């Protein structure tokens, strides 16, 4: 029983196994437009491009632990993603509308502060509400999309695997995660952690961001291709200073965290806006017309 409990803790902490080495795409000409659809949230368009991506999850080959493969991913279309994390004030609007769970006491409600101590379910509830409200389609980014948008804010966190000595990998990961940026876990105003080359703010600051990517165990063949994959969608990838895997109902990973790892400081999110199809554009126009 206790072992099972520890394993569960450990699972939520199999952090930072992998991460992309991003090829920085240029800021698109479309640039940044702020809150045009009444979301209060500026959207950045990351121009189509490539990313060198360290696949998330756990990997085995011939029944033994294997290093996460590095993949080359092309984004054919631009990616429309929020410049900032969803603010606590925007999230509060969803709470007031009865569509989102209240933020914990202690989370500062302000238009320039991130909504934190939110679970993956909270983030999805907000995306659903915002989509209904605006007629647009908002959703969490996949881990690949996050890596693509994060650009240089993301570093490859692949680790070598020594099957004769698993402890080397544990120690290397522990040391890497212990390399924290100074400043602690206090939530700060938007922009405090700077803007990346794609125009996104506060990536890899002290707020980790939920993605839609499930924790997946991949079986690789000798060529490094995935032969089979088994996903556990009760655990999702969160992105920030290091990649981490967090159970979807956890709101505060600091206290819920790790037997022997370094947990994320805060859990927040930003959303991707799907490109509008012709049909949805018309539907939206009608929706607005009906007002």
């Amino acid at each position, binding site marked *: 029983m206790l072992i099972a409990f520890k394993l569960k803790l450990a699972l939520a902490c199999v952090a930072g196994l992998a991460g992309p080495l991003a090829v920085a795409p240029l800021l698109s000409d479309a640039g940044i437009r702020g809150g045009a659809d009444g979301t209060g949230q500026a959207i950045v368009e990351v121009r189509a491009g490539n990313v060198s991506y360290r696949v998330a999850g756990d990997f085995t080959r011939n029944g033994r632990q294997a290093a996460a493969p590095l993949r080359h991913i092309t984004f054919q279309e631009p990616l429309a993603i929020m410049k900032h994390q969803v603010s606590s004030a925007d999230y509060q609007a969803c709470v007031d509308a009865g569509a989102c769970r209240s933020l914990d006491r202690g989370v500062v409600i302000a238009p320039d502060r991130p909504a934190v101590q939110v679970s993956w379910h909270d983030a999805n509830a907000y995306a659903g509400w915002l989509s209904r409200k605006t007629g647009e389609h908002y959703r969490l980014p996949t881990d690949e999309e996050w890596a693509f948008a994060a650009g240089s804010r993301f570093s490859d966190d692949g680790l070598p695997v020594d099957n004769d000595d698993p402890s080397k990998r544990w*120690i290397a990961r*522990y040391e890497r995660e212990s390399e924290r940026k100074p400043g602690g876990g206090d939530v700060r105003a938007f922009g405090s952690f700077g803007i990346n080359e794609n125009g996104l703010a506060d990536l890899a600051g002290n707020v980790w961001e939920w993605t839609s990517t499930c924790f997946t165990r991949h079986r690789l063949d000798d060529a490094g291709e995935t032969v089979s994959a088994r996903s556990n969608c009760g655990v999702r990838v969160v992105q920030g200073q290091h990649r981490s895997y967090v159970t979807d109902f956890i709101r505060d990973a*600091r206290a819920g965290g790790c037997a022997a790892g370094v947990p994320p400081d805060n859990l927040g999110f930003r959303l991707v806006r799907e490109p509008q199809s012709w049909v949805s554009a018309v539907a939206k126009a009608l929706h607005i017309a009906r007002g």
Partner: protein
Amino acid sequence: MLTRRAALLSAAAAALMLAVSAPAKAADDLKLPRQKVELVAPPFVHAHEQATKQGPKIIEFTLTVEEKKVVIDEKGTTFQAMTFNGSMPGPLMVVHEGDYVEVTLVNPASNSMPHNVDFHSATGALGGAELTLVNPGEQVTLRWKATRTGTFVYHCAPGGPMIPWHVVSGMAGAVMVLPREGLTDGKGKPVKYDRAYYIGEFDLYVPRDEKGNFKAYDSPGESYNDTVEVMKKLTPTHVVFNGKAGALTGKSALTSKVGETVLIVHSQANRDSRPHLIGGHGDHVWETGKFSNAPETGLETWFIRGGSAGAATYKFLQPGIYAYVTHNLIEAVELGATAHFKVEGKWNDDLMTQVKAPSEIPPAKTN
């Protein structure tokens, strides 16, 4: 604010009247060599001999009381701490049986309250508390003979309700009195260690405002009334090693090597605890901390009674990251009582190996 401080001072003044009557001794009445020891902040322990061929000495230590605001978790919760030498716990003092411990307790004028010290290892006068109460701006020197071996708590005990409050505000540390011939397994075999760590556990009681957020205060006196209300519920808001959740993790993780034997002294001045090294054991454990008793061997979890310090040795056999926790896992994970050991060395497949990595459950065989 001044009135509350005045009240605190006068409450202690009564105790002080009783305290001054003991005769002060000339410093050189004992014809013994003297040794001055510079204390170091936990989790480290000052250099010392594990066994000694030298005769008894007078060992001199200085404890300076420091009242200060500290941060006790990664959320930045602040706490009005009272400390010996600025650390929670106070430093570990190591001497040998038969030595005389001469402690100078300094209470700088910048502090707001009287303080003293009760050594569980000392005999008489409430462990020295009756002879050591000093107001801000004063200092006192106490000498006691180390007649019993073991690890022992020391703590501030300035009288009445001040006692538990000062202790759970950080004023506790430990003394280790080693047998002159060193530690043994109780059957005559020496028990030696390659390095020693001192972990002091504290249960903290931080008041919350009406919204449920932890409150911050500008001085210990201002925090007193609210804090006592939380204390009386006996439910700590934090249980921490070395003053802060995460004080002994990440870059501050304890370190060791495969093949090294580590001595871990663990004190809890106020409340029970149950240390457990996840992935390791206690080779020789003096659960009650007293070296005149044979140690228990091969333990999984041991018990530290509130108001005592225990000692355990463990030789690391496997590299990796170990968690050292109190095995009330709610306190370990949610309230902060977790430390990490980072152990380098060579993996031993014989002790453990992952025979088959996680994969799909194979279909059931049908006959």
